[in-house]
């Protein structure tokens, strides 16, 4: 068994750490992923967001060489994910969606085995990670709670300090403290020049750690955007009540206003942050009785700009 590989050519080969072209996967007649074009760079956490069954796990398993692409291709660190999967996996720490462990082996034995499969002595990093996640490595995995099994799987994925982390719903089952620690670990990883592909159906998680977000619906990547850009466009719900009926025309011309409805004394609409100033000024022309303005969930913002109509396309 060879020792840790030399990475000299990798830096040249891949500024785009993960790159997919028309990547598609069908199971029989069911299309799980359609024409995915996605590029991930060094030093970013990419939040891969979507409801369950949208194709997130399929994407991740394609990248890990566990599934064979039906069409298209993908490269990780310059290596083809199907034909050069072993090389891909040398550079990737993978956390499966529902990680299974060997029931009779302790945490340390897992560390021992998986380190040797990478041609290394047991990674000292595993002990640091276990400490930070507050995990006991001496217990057989069958005696661990679900949360602790997840922690062990996280330790195993992160311990080789690979350039890329592919994490499928990594915080599921973790207590809030461990979730927070894992988010810190992800940020540390990208600060050191690494890349994280993080799948999640929990928006809050993605909001906390991701630099960019991609939204997947029914096997299609419907939007990719920087999180800060998305925040600037974040949708607000405006609800206003007036002393007297107001004309729709006074509001209809404002840029970015959606779902505008004026019924009698009441106005409701949704608008991005950038339009709020003009809306408030328009509202000020009329005697106002009550006003509420609430920020929508990120997912709603996302869907408002990119997602509509996708239901028919699938």
């Amino acid at each position, binding site marked *: 068994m060879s020792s840790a590989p030399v990475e000299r050519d990798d830096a040249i080969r891949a500024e785009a750490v993960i790159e997919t072209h028309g990547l598609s996967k069908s199971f029989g007649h069911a299309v799980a992923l359609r024409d995915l074009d996605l590029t991930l760079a060094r030093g970013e956490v990419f939040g891969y967001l979507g409801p369950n069954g949208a194709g997130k796990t399929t994407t991740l398993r394609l990248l890990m060489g*566990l*599934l064979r692409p039906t069409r298209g291709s993908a490269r990780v660190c310059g290596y083809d994910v199907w034909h050069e*999967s072993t090389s891909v*996996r040398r550079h*990737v720490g993978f956390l499966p969606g529902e990680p*299974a462990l060997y029931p009779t082996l302790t945490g340390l034995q897992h560390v021992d085995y*998986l380190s*040797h*499969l990478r*041609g290394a002595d047991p990674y000292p990093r595993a002990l640091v990670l276990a400490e930070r996640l507050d995990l006991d490595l001496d217990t057989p995995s069958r005696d661990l709670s679900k949360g602790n099994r997840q922690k062990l799987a996280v330790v195993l994925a992160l311990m080789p300090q690979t350039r890329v982390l592919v994490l499928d719903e990594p915080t599921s089952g973790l207590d809030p403290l461990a979730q927070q620690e894992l988010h810190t670990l992800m940020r540390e990883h990208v600060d050191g020049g690494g890349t994280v592909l993080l799948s999640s159906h929990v928006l809050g998680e993605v909001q906390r750690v991701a630099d960019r977000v991609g939204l997947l619906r029914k096997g299609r990547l419907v939007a990719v955007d920087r999180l800060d850009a998305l925040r600037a466009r974040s949708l607000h719900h405006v609800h206003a009540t007036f002393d007297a009926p107001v004309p729709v025309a006074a509001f209809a011309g404002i840029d970015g206003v959606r779902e505008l409805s004026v019924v009698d004394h009441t106005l409701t609409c949704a608008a991005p942050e950038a339009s709020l100033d003009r809306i408030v000024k328009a509202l000020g022309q009329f005697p106002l009785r009550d006003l509420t303005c609430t920020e929508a969930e990120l997912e709603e913002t996302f869907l408002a700009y990119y997602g509509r109509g996708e239901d028919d396309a699938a």
Partner: protein
Amino acid sequence: MLHSVALKTLHDQRRSLVGWVVAVVLLVLMYAAIWPSIRDQPSMSDFLDQMPEAFRSLFATAGADMSTPVGYIQIELMSFMGPTLLILYAVGQGSSAVAGEEDRHTLDLLLGSPVSRARVVLEKAGAMVLGTLGLAVATGAALVLVGRLFDLSLPAGRTAAAMLHLALLGLVFGALALAVGAATGSPGRSRGVAAAVAVLAYLVNGLGGLVDWLRPFQRLSPFYQYAAHDPLRAGVSWPAVVVAVLTVAVLVAAAVWGFGRRDVRG
């Protein structure tokens, strides 16, 4: 101990292998303990002679003779019980190698490491071979050593030859289970196909000498390679060894091929 897929697989086998060895030793002990009373019952041989020929060719290999240690062991252990145990063991290992691990979802963990699928199959096949040989060696050692306690003396060299053929018989079906499991990911299908083919091969070999239209197929049966030349008396048949080893090699290659081109279930 956990330094490679093969060593890990042997590590997983160790408890069950100890159990199998204990079972085999107890079985041999039982046969050996009955031996003195069988030997002194010449009517046993008459009874065998009177059995229908079909029955004899299924349950007793050529030249069945209960009055000698070799003939006794041939009938009691080598014709049915021994092959059954070795095949069960090897098929169990073969089906759990890829399909079993996939069924328990731990294949994701293994294939998250930079280990090629071919290497997973080959190392697991290696562990299956070692485990099965180990069980055969234990059976042979028990026969020779326990046999001595009961005046059931078997020639060590010929016993070793018979154990080699016995292990190869098990490995042929173990490799079949490995190949089916690697190609389908289903441990049930893997064991089912191996068991069905084993029964079929057993019948073809047993009845091939009696039924004309089966005769051409008899030589294809791994049971023919295993016992037709009577290893307890004649020693190793190298052509039979070569056929069995090639069969195992082809099936392992099929396992590598089948596993290398399909999706792994999550």
